[in-house]
């Protein structure tokens, strides 16, 4: 599937080296190899393309490892009649899974939690004042779920919004991280997610330096949160550059 250039957005090596030095100091470090051969602070290669569906105002396809997501954006179009007048635009998000997205055949249901999380992650980035009385619909479909679904959906949706020409303050990129004992593992796969001790997800606008969505589960010390945030924010900025270059490529294709 991935024919274009594969890019990765792992946080800086210098940062990583520093962490590894810290780790060497701490004893009893349990090291293990990740199933796909990455090291702890290495993200999966990201493949992103815009214009995946032709009927939508904007769309994007994302493939991070074997997690595959397609997002289409419709609108801005007139809000439903039942909705009250609003002088700012509305954002409507829907995240659904295909029946074949997981290894056991699922129900292919909508995911309401993810839908509301996606909405909150993007709301702060979109200039809603530019389309009063109207609604932008975002439909995300997870073709294959292999870990880190939500951050990938968020990044892919912000790319699709940009493709649809919706005014935004900045592109939102999102990265998740799992915590295993003392180790922080960035961009976890679904097997890793299943046995994690804690997790952290950040959606970030690098240019405005603003976090739009942040969730954390499991037990954390403040120092560890600092470390994890630093890693994620660095990865987010890099991912944002990839998103940006993907959009530029698209424009170049048009001019050719």
């Amino acid at each position, binding site marked *: 599937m991935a024919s274009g250039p594969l890019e990765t957005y792992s946080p800086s090596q210098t940062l990583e080296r520093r962490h590894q030095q810290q780790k060497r100091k701490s004893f009893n470090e349990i090291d293990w190899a990740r199933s796909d051969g990455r090291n702890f602070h290495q993200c999966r290669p990201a493949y992103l393309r815009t214009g995946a569906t032709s009927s939508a105002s904007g769309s994007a396809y994302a493939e991070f490892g074997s997690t595959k997501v397609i997002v289409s954006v419709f609108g801005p179009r007139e809000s439903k009649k039942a909705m009250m007048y609003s002088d700012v635009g509305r954002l409507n998000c829907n995240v659904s899974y295909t029946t074949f997205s997981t290894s056991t055949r699922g129900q292919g249901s909508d995911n309401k*939690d993810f839908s509301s999380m996606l909405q909150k992650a993007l709301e702060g980035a979109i200039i809603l004042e530019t389309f009063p009385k109207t609604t932008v619909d975002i439909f995300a479909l997870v073709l294959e779920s292999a870990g880190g679904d939500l951050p990938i959906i968020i990044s892919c949706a912000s790319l699709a919004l940009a493709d649809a020409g919706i005014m935004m303050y900045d592109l939102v990129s999102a990265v998740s991280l799992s915590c295993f004992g003392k180790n922080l593992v960035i961009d976890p796969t679904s097997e890793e997610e*299943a046995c994690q001790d804690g997790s952290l997800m950040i959606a970030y606008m690098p240019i405005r*330096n603003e*976090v739009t969505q942040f969730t954390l589960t499991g*037990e954390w010390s403040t120092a560890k*949160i600092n470390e994890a945030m630093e890693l994620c924010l660095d990865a987010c900025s890099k991912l944002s550059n990839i998103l940006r270059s993907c959009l530029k490529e698209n424009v170049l294709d048009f001019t050719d």
Partner: protein
Amino acid sequence: MVGLSAGEKQFMHGGIAQDLRSDGRQRLQFRPISIQTGVIPQANGSARVTLGATVVIASIKAELGKPAPLRPDKGKVVIFIDCSPTAGTMFEGRGGEELSSELSVGLQRCLLGGKSGAEAGAGIDLSSLVLAEGKICWDLYIDGLVISSDGNLLDALAAAIKVCRFIFLVRFEISSPWQVALSNTGIPKVSVIVEASAEDQLEVNVSDEEFLQFDTSGVPVIVTLTKVGRHYIADATSEEESQMSSAVSVSVNRHGRVCGLTKRGGAGLDPSVMLDMISVAKHASENLIAVLDSEIAAAEAAEDDGS
């Protein structure tokens, strides 16, 4: 929704900037909190928490169930929150569903550590709920009900769930025959006899006399910091919440460790502000835990007198 005039908004913002809110509190001060335990006799544990004009009830019920195939050594905990229309006309019909599910997810994340509840930091020790590995376990159903709403529902609900635990340990001691007739109080001790039959069936004896002591003392509290204008405040009322740009809910346990975090509201936050809010929330949680502890002690004394 709360409608505020321009003047009222300005007054509120000005007050917050000067560290004196409309009701006379400081930015990080909580409203007086009061607790009543054992309000639902049919449940294994229950509590009502009143935080200003916010009133919530939490109840915990234990039922026998089967562990999930992927986690044979763990019991299950389900959190479900409902917003009663008595709290406001906006919760009429299906109106409360969105908020209810947001609160349920928030609590799940903050108290159980993710949906599966398998992660460390969960205040409830799921392994202690298992009676026979892979076969039978306790399912805990945590139900929250919002009776009256004046902001900061998440913190109030978490506090209510936290103080429920006390009843778990004490309920059986004070259970009168009258209450036993209605339902079993406390978690009855169950002995499981494994038979080597082909159907792999279990015989379960539920004893009414012995009770399992259930330890949930590690359940964290949630402190929500709401950002209004340039400052952030603790325990916002619904007027203040209507003016919020974003809010961060941090759950902190007794040892001062962060157990979960959610962000509400669309507006972005600077990462350094976020870290600042986490450390402030940790400080505020110490006070909140102390207040809850003394309230629990008071409730305990009251129940002792009553029995």
